[in-house]
């Protein structure tokens, strides 16, 4: 029990497969990682990489039908995989909560925001109506909403995107969860608002002593705000390690491609971007080999035939899945 409590979250060999008309779709395959207390981990991938499905599977929020989950998710000692909805419901909100991608759709449009915060407090914590309201206003203040008493009565439609995302965060924090899953929390927001929200999440994490899983497609979001990152491609982890190691000493060609193909403010104008050809694979038609092989310039026959497992890199905690990894000592081309 003691060694379990050191880590807040332990994910072991987690796979999520959807049954679709086109056959089984392995959205998430053989994922293992863990997360310490008060730590922030980033999960990075493009659309279709399985990062959103992964975050929902960890919470046990996957759809109820046509899906099979194997492996193990230990959340503060509680096994989430295969647990009943009732069991998971007791953990949702108090152990783990989620901030969703699109604040336009994640709030109930016909319910006053105050009520949406109250609800969790009253149902889960058994607070009285007055206490819940007072606490809800406190929470609104905590997430930086101006004049919270008036906003308590507002409908989501009366708030801007940034404000709504703050409300979503307030709801997630209502029952003081130990783990916050943030699924692309700033994707739909403007840069200046994005900076506000990310700073807010950082601050709250320290203040409330939470752990955070930050899921995003944007390497910029995770670069300075996580201690470790997981890079996903086609439902699998292709590289994992301390953020600095992954950025500076990445070994997997996909990680490099991701870094180099994103334009940078510091680039001179008309800098030619380095691209990877093609698109992410169809998960219904995966081959035996490495999923990235068809787009990889280093791919050999072996890559096409045999899937690489994660192997340790030089730095502790840093591993990658590649048969032909990039050399360790390279120039400072990463930044």
């Amino acid at each position, binding site marked *: 029990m003691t060694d379990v409590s050191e880590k807040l979250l332990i994910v072991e060999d987690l796979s999520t497969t959807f049954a679709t008309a086109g056959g089984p779709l392995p959205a998430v395959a053989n994922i293992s990682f863990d997360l310490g207390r008060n730590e922030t981990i980033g999960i990075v991938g493009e659309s279709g990489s399985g990062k959103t499905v992964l975050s929902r599977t960890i919470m046990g929020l996957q759809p109820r039908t046509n899906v099979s989950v194997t492996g193990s998710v230990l959340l503060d000692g509680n096994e989430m995989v295969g647990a009943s909805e009732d069991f998971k*419901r007791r953990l949702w909100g108090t152990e783990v909560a*989620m901030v969703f991608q699109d604040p336009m759709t994640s709030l109930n449009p016909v319910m006053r925001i105050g009520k949406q915060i109250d609800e969790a407090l009253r149902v889960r914590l058994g607070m009285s109506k007055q206490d819940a309201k007072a606490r809800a206003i406190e929470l609104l203040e905590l997430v930086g909403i101006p004049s919270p008493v008036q906003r308590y009565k507002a409908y989501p439609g009366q708030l801007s995107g940034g404000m709504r995302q703050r409300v979503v965060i307030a709801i997630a924090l209502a029952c003081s969860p130990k783990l916050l899953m943030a699924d692309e929390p700033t994707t739909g927001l403007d840069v200046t608002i994005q900076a506000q929200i990310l700073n807010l999440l950082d601050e709250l994490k320290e203040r409330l002593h939470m752990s955070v899983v930050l899921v995003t497609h944007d390497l910029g979001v995770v670069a300075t705000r996580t201690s470790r990152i997981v890079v996903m491609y086609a439902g699998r982890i292709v590289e994992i390690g301390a953020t600095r190691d992954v950025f500076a000493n990445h070994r997997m060609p996909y990680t490099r491609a991701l870094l180099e193909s994103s334009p940078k403010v510091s680039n001179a104008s008309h800098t030619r971007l380095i691209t990877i050809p093609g698109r992410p694979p169809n998960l219904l038609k995966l081959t035996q080999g490495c999923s990235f092989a068809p787009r990889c310039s280093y791919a050999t026959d072996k890559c096409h035939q045999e899937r690489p497992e994660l192997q340790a890199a030089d730095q502790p905690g840093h591993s990658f899945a590649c048969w032909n990894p990039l050399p360790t000592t390279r120039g400072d081309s990463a930044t």
Partner: protein
Amino acid sequence: MLRYVIRRILMLIGIVFIISVGSFFLIHLLPGNITAVIEGPGASPENQAKLFKLLGLNRPIYEQYFVWIGNILHGNLGTSFISQTPVVTTIGNALPIDLEIMFLSQILAFAVAIPMAMRSARKPDGVIDRFFSAGSFTMLSVPSFIVIILLVLFVSIKLGIPHTGPSSYVSLRGDWIGNLESMALPAITLAVGSFVVYFRVLRSDLIATLQEEFITMARSKGLSQRRIMWRHAFRPSSVALLGAAGVNIGGLLAGGFVVQYLLNIPGLGYTLIAAINTDDYLLVQGIVLVVSVGVVLINFFFDFIINIVDPRISRE
């Protein structure tokens, strides 16, 4: 919100005006000598002259309209030349029966449709959903006049339950159990037609709503399925349901007429058909006017409810 209500009320006044014009001209659509047509063959010349004066047929048509509408605003819809009773009295006797049927049928329809739609939406395309959907689909294709015939055939003829057959209407004033019995078949018939519409509309909206992110959000708060369904999914899904109810109640009238006609229940529908068959045009005109305005008011009422249920609508 206030702006919205004012706009709707202005529109309502416009619609009622158009309805009144429409009903007014119904009389003037009649071919030939209007007074003769209205009073039927063999009407006495003095009666014809009386009607001529009443309708003010010697004056310009717009003046005739204003005289007519003025009378109506004073509660005078004219006096039937067939039964010699004021039209208002006849309508006043018949209307409560319609309201009772409507009320019973809607309670019944909602009481069945809402839980069924929720059950269906929980697992779309599951066994229960397929069964419910197929059933509602079949019922959609059975017009109310067939439903009532089948019900009469089985309930009153085969089972012999009292007060359910034709011409066995019991007034509410006398014996309320008998009244309820005589209202059962009409209410069930109209409920069947309404239920199909409500079930289908609510089911498809609930399915869509349950896929929304805010439902996942509600789940992630640790709320129970029941609570999510009633507190989070039902209200945003009920806008189309209420809209359908508003429209449907208007549409039900035709079905209501059929049922009353078949069972000889002296509601507005029965009275209207009887009036048509006896060429009692003033009564027809009065009923058309009253029912049309009633339908418009019902629609207005439901629109108003929709605005309370979904604050997004009036904000747009």
